[in-house]
């Protein structure tokens, strides 16, 4: 299961598992983001390369308009996936406390 919605402070809350079967839902939401945006991964348990592709596509679009994604509360498993993918150099990422 994967859920994505706006939080009370305008951040984007992602929950569950972002796998290849959830890409359409995630991409549809991400395509609506404009300007600098914060993704809160506190309740995101899992992401695969399909989800990484969505983040990459969104980041390219937003950076093109001088904005970008900040990803916060990243669990250690997803953080290491980001590290192996080199995402720590192209995203503003904050690990979960």
């Amino acid at each position, binding site marked *: 299961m994967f859920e994505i919605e706006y939080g009370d402070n305008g951040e984007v809350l992602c929950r569950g598992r972002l796998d290849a079967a959830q890409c359409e839902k995630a991409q549809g939401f991400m395509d609506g983001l404009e300007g600098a945006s914060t993704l809160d991964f506190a309740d995101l348990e899992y992401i*695969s390369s399909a989800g990484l592709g969505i983040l*990459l596509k969104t980041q*390219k679009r937003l950076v093109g308009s001088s904005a970008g994604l900040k990803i916060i509360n990243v669990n250690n*498993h997803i953080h290491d996936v980001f590290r192996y993918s*080199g995402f720590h150099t192209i995203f503003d990422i904050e690990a979960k406390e």
Partner: protein
Amino acid sequence: MRRDFPRNLDSLSPLYEFAEEIFESNDISPGVRFPAHLAMEELFVNMVKYNPDVPTDITVEVTVTFLGEATNDAASSKEVTVTLVDDGGVEFDVTAKRQVNIDAPLEERTPGGLGIHLIQNLADRLEYTYKDGRGEVIFTKGSGNEDV
């Protein structure tokens, strides 16, 4: 334990539940579960993507091996093996090294190849065989070697 899954992305959720039940009953650590789930998805999706018209299901087997003597730290002595069999598909060697530049600037990045790159880095062992149209991939990850 072995099960056949229809060749489409709707199988990802049942595939996760199938493996998670095995991991739960064997008290597999999160540091092994995560890469094992990741490998299963990436390999399964690859088989769906590259062999969409093959009529056969994809067979997935998950086994847990207990290594050496049992210890108080039970999680330190288990190894998970995930085997995927694609009968009738084209050859796709997932152990072959691919050009993925993880240091490239954003404008040069593409998502292609990241999945295989990840499982090559996360696996303790990754094996591939292909014979007479039958491809088999074996991903192995043991506790004590957790990366994630």
